[in-house]
């Protein structure tokens, strides 16, 4: 058996179903060996999107997404995708081909020091020096990527190592990592302290971050909140963890969030921050969430606790494990008065938009779309004004909301939706992007077509890079610089070249009818939604 065959065996042992990538000579031994496997290979149209598609798979299967690209430009092109996954703690295993080991460091054709280049965007990386190490390295890589605080792991494999014969293939049952032991169980003394503070609380609140879904703790957190009647808010990465219309849910926090969600968090007396980084977009003034209150910060990554806000009770561990422990403790609190205050805030602080009726109003459209979407559907939001509108108005039931929260990578939604649809073909998956982000990933229409993956894409067209235009409107008094998207293609003609159906919505009048048509379409379909170029998210 050669190294390349061993890699495929490792992927099979890990239950990998899809490999996204783009071949080149340096990864050809691997792509040759995978032909003998049931693993499905998906040729994306640019390497960055291989990582985004793998991210879509990872987020719906709780297993690392896998991609494989060639050396040099293939490897450097995928960096943005890796960094996007890293920022959102999405587990990936990224395989890169590399030049022959004896040529390493001599700047030969398509050589790039990829392990060096991705150092700050990966949880760990390997440069394979010996084919016999392949089984151990893959076992470790999958374990590291998907344990503790999840994230991408890169394995760089020189061409000759892929072709070398390995003595014996034996996939290890377990890992033996001397230096890596993530904390899973929360400290019991800290858990007692949390219960003590919660039982005294008059105005507690739970802030749900992306870590709750990553830790598969959605149910137990919701059960805990319901049992004690504790209200909840979410960060952007936490959207979809609990149904949007849940009576204890008070929206997304942050500078693009709901004013009543921020007020609720700031006025609480005990704040349980769960699987959230307390990053600048969610909490612009960390002192507000520590002033006059007990901040309980639960995270699997000890370095996140105290990084942006000093917590009163730090609690390191896996959030599912911690909430199982918290649920064993009994205490009684009555939050009903606090919850009704929050419902009042929700009424008083509702943002009333004044849409321009010559166009489609994003609030009206996204609300109608998500109400009509299936119960367990997947909404993939891109980056830009469209993301903020999606966060504000998407009504997530028991489905998922995927977006690039930490890195804010434009072009994420289409390849991520592709991965999500592959992973869960029975679920409805809709990508929602702007005309800017669409053009960053539109080459992937061919990937949907080639691999018979159903595409449902919505493009908000305002002929601008709306988010930057809005910033220039506020900050530079409408001196617009490099934000016009004039010259964009005619989308109807463009998608017809890929055999997509095309739908268009010009104003609010036909929303319901057009959405029905869009959701029911069995073919690949793109819906272009004309929105006011001068619209603002706030």
């Amino acid at each position, binding site marked *: 058996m050669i190294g390349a065959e061993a890699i495929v065996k490792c992927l099979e042992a890990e239950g990998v179903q899809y490999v996204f990538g783009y071949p080149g000579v340096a990864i050809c031994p691997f792509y040759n060996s995978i032909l003998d496997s049931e693993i499905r290979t998906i040729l994306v149209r640019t390497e960055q999107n291989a990582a985004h598609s793998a991210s879509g798979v990872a987020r719906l299967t709780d297993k690392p997404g896998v991609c494989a690209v060639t050396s040099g430009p293939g490897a450097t092109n995928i960096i943005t995708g890796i960094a996007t996954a890293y920022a959102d703690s999405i587990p990936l295993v990224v395989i890169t081909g590399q030049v022959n080991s004896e040529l390493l460091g001599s700047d030969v054709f398509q050589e790039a020091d990829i392990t060096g280049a991705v*150092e700050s965007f990966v949880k760990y990386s390997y440069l394979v020096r010996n084919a016999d190490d392949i089984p151990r390295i893959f076992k470790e890589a999958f374990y590291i990527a998907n344990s503790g605080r999840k994230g991408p792991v890169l394995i760089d494999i020189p061409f000759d190592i892929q072709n070398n014969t390995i003595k014996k293939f034996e996939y290890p049952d377990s890992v033996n990592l*001397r*230096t890596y032991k993530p904390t899973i169980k929360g400290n019991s003394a800290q858990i007692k302290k949390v219960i003590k503070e919660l039982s005294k609380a008059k105005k507690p609140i739970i802030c749900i971050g992306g870590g709750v879904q990553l830790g598969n703790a959605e149910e137990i957190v919701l059960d805990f909140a319901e049992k004690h009647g504790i209200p909840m808010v979410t960060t952007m990465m936490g959207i979809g963890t609990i149904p949007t219309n849940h009576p204890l849910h008070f929206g997304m926090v942050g500078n693009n969030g709901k004013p009543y969600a921020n007020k609720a968090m700031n006025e609480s007396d005990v704040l349980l921050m769960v699987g959230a980084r307390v990053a600048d977009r969610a909490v612009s003034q960390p002192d507000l969430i520590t002033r006059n209150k007990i901040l309980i910060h639960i995270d699997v990554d000890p*370095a996140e606790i105290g*990084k942006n806000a000093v917590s009163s009770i730090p609690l390191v561990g896996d959030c599912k494990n911690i909430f199982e422990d918290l649920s064993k403790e009994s205490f009684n609190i009555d939050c009903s008065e606090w919850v009704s205050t929050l419902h009042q805030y929700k009424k008083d602080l509702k943002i009333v938009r004044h849409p321009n009726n010559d166009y489609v109003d994003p609030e009206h459209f996204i609300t109608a779309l998500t109400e009509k979407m299936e119960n367990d559907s997947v909404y993939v939001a891109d980056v830009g004004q469209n993301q903020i509108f999606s966060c504000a108005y998407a009504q997530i039931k028991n489905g998922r909301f995927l977006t690039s929260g930490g890195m804010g990578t434009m072009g994420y939604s289409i390849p991520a939706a592709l991965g999500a649809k592959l992973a869960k073909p029975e679920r409805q998956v809709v990508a929602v992007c702007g005309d800017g982000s669409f053009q960053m990933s539109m080459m992937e229409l061919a990937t949907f077509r080639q691999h018979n993956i159903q595409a449902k894409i919505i493009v908000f067209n305002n002929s601008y890079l709306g988010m930057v235009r809005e910033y220039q409107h506020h900050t530079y008094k409408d001196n617009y610089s490099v934000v016009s998207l004039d010259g964009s293609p005619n989308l109807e003609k463009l998608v017809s070249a890929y055999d997509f159906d095309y739908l268009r919505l010009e104003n609010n009048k036909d929303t319901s009818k057009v959405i029905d048509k869009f959701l029911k379409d069995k073919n690949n379909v793109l819906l272009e939604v004309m929105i006011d170029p001068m619209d603002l998210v706030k």
Partner: protein
Amino acid sequence: MQTKVFQVLADNTSGVLSRIASLFSRRGYNIESITAGVTADPKYSRVTIVSSGDQNTLEQIEKQLAKLVDVKVVTELVPEESVYRELALVKVKVSPDQRQNIIAITDIFRGKIVDVAPECLIIEITGGISKIDKFLELLNGYEILELARTGTAGLSRGIENVTYLP
């Protein structure tokens, strides 16, 4: 601003030092010195890092170091409970009539003359950071041709704080 000395026990693999160093550069942490070498158990390296920053930064440095997959344990070497040493090699230009004076200063600091050439000599000196700084101050009137400092290495005192490895 405070200065702290951290002791890092890490897997003795290629790339571990670059991972530690790149952590400092990308997060904007100060490194005053960094030294690394294999421990009694060749599977591990001991890295001693002298860093400075405010309380929060120093806490983050400790946590971020501990988070690296290759790092087993990070401890602070507190001054009162630790021994720090640094080695310096100093090549000084000396005329024959200056030589005795230099040898005298070196003796006082318990240094050694490790090389003598007609126009210069090399002094080896070990000690804490301040001792070496003081010694160099005393060489003020002389021309230092070359200076090589190793950076601080340290261990905790006593048997209580020994980090046993599996």
